[in-house]
């Protein structure tokens, strides 16, 4: 991707590919899962070639998502660690929502809302994986009792609903905060974007002469 001069790398190519594989899997899982959750949405199964294909494909797509999200965790966990600044940011959420960020505590690479999305998914996806295995009858029917399978179905549904609502928040935030979408499609943001939304991250990049996504750790060594 050609990065215009002076722009900052928000998400390198590997991260973007990883993110969009995850996104595609999530959307397919949401559509196929909802078709099996509520009869009024059963028509969504037509998108997958019918009910039997939907049921057969859903768990396999889920496995791809698990692997893909594990990749997201590897790349993102360090910058998503909770700090005490995040509490202050969360308490100022009303001003964040009102687009008055000047008076909100400055944030690093990710704000508390992004961290919430990241860790929620990091929790919900393993829950969906393990309950999903319990109800993947074709391979695992004999491993558990029917009582466990009933509980797994309920937990799987509840966790999926929670994940979908968090996904709606995630997608809306990307639409709402202009420039975020390009950060995940083309991978870069303007310095002004970084200043406005992630000033601590911006300062760290500037202080170390890094163009992103993380501050340089080899400051002082001769630059090429």
């Amino acid at each position, binding site marked *: 991707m050609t990065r215009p001069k002076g722009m900052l790398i928000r998400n390198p190519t590997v991260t973007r590919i990883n993110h969009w594989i995850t996104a595609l899997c999530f959307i397919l899982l949401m559509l196929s899962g909802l*078709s*099996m*959750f*509520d*009869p*009024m949405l*059963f028509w969504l*199964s037509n998108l997958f070639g*019918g*009910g*039997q294909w*939907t*049921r*057969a494909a859903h768990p396999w797509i889920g496995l791809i998502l698990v692997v893909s999200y594990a990749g997201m965790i590897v790349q993102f966990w360090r910058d998503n660690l909770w700090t005490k600044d995040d509490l202050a940011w969360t308490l100022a959420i009303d001003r964040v*929502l*009102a*687009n008055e*960020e000047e008076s909100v505590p400055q944030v690093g690479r990710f704000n508390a809302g992004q961290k919430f999305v990241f860790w929620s998914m990091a929790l919900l996806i393993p829950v969906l994986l393990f309950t999903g295995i319990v*109800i993947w*009858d*074709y391979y695992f*029917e004999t491993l558990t009792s*029917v*009582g466990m*399978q*009933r*509980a797994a*179905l*309920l937990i799987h*549904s*509840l966790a999926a*609903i929670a994940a*979908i*609502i968090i996904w*709606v*928040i995630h997608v*809306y935030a990307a*639409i*709402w*905060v*202009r*420039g975020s979408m390009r950060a995940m499609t083309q991978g870069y943001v*303007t*310095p*002004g*974007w*970084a*200043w*406005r*939304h992630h000033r601590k991250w*911006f*300062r760290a990049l*500037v*202080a*170390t*002469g890094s163009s992103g996504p993380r501050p*340089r750790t080899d*400051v*002082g*060594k001769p630059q090429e």
Partner: protein
Amino acid sequence: MSMQSQDYIRRSATTLTPPSVRSYEDQVAKLIDVTRCIGCKACQAACMEWNNLRNPVGTFEGTYDNPLDLDPATWTLMRFTEYENEQGNLEWLIRKDGCMHCEDPGCLKACPAPGAIVQYANGIVDFISENCIGCGYCVKGCPFNIPRISKVDLKSYKCTLCSDRVSVGLEPACVKACPTGAILFGSKKDMTDWAGERVNDLKSRGFENAGLYDPPGVDGTHVMYVLHHADTPSIYAGLPDNPKISATVEFWKGLIKPVALAGIAASVVAGFLHWIIAGPNEVQPEDEIKARELEAAERGKSREHPSDIEGNPV
């Protein structure tokens, strides 16, 4: 080929009222009089014959139960129990297991595929294979552990109560084959009346707990048992004492469906409202100016004060 859809009084995964112009049809029932069963398995053979089910020959497992469990090609199965009664005597309890055709079918309630499970006006619960997606929800919904998913075509199978025979005025194959009259078929009322006579007879012969098994937890069944020990159905190879649709399944298929969709819709609406009230959060020209100033200041600083390997000013 399925029966006329005008016969349906319940249809899985359907929110609208199914066509049921014949809903005044007589309710049918199969009555299995366990006290008259000799365990000959003629019913099992007749079921295989009529429904064209041929399992591969299995292996002997040291029990009369053969095969050991219901499967996609075994829709009815004699289950043998050696029960020692209070007097210390052996009672050989033989129960013909299979779909109970609940009035309130858990399989139908759990099924996500429209029309894959239906209940006819006469009460028979049937699986319409062409609509089945093989998800296995019916297995979780059933309080009697009856449906089995085929590993071959990934569809769910169980006793149809010979709905094809019943629709043309014949009795189910197992009923026709039974040599002792232990399996009867007719209107639910007639079967209940006959069972009452049998129960009275059994009581007069010392089986004081004899009774009819027509569990109210599932609003009654269209397959009923006469039991000598109706107070403890579970001694008959695990026949549930008080079967009902699991509360987990009821909750999953009841309250959370509308609440979940409302929750998702609410989150979308909240986003839209935020968009029209607060609007997008856009980078302003002064943000870019301030960012450039900081970058310029940092460049100037590093020229005057080179930093050390840790990035601290030296």
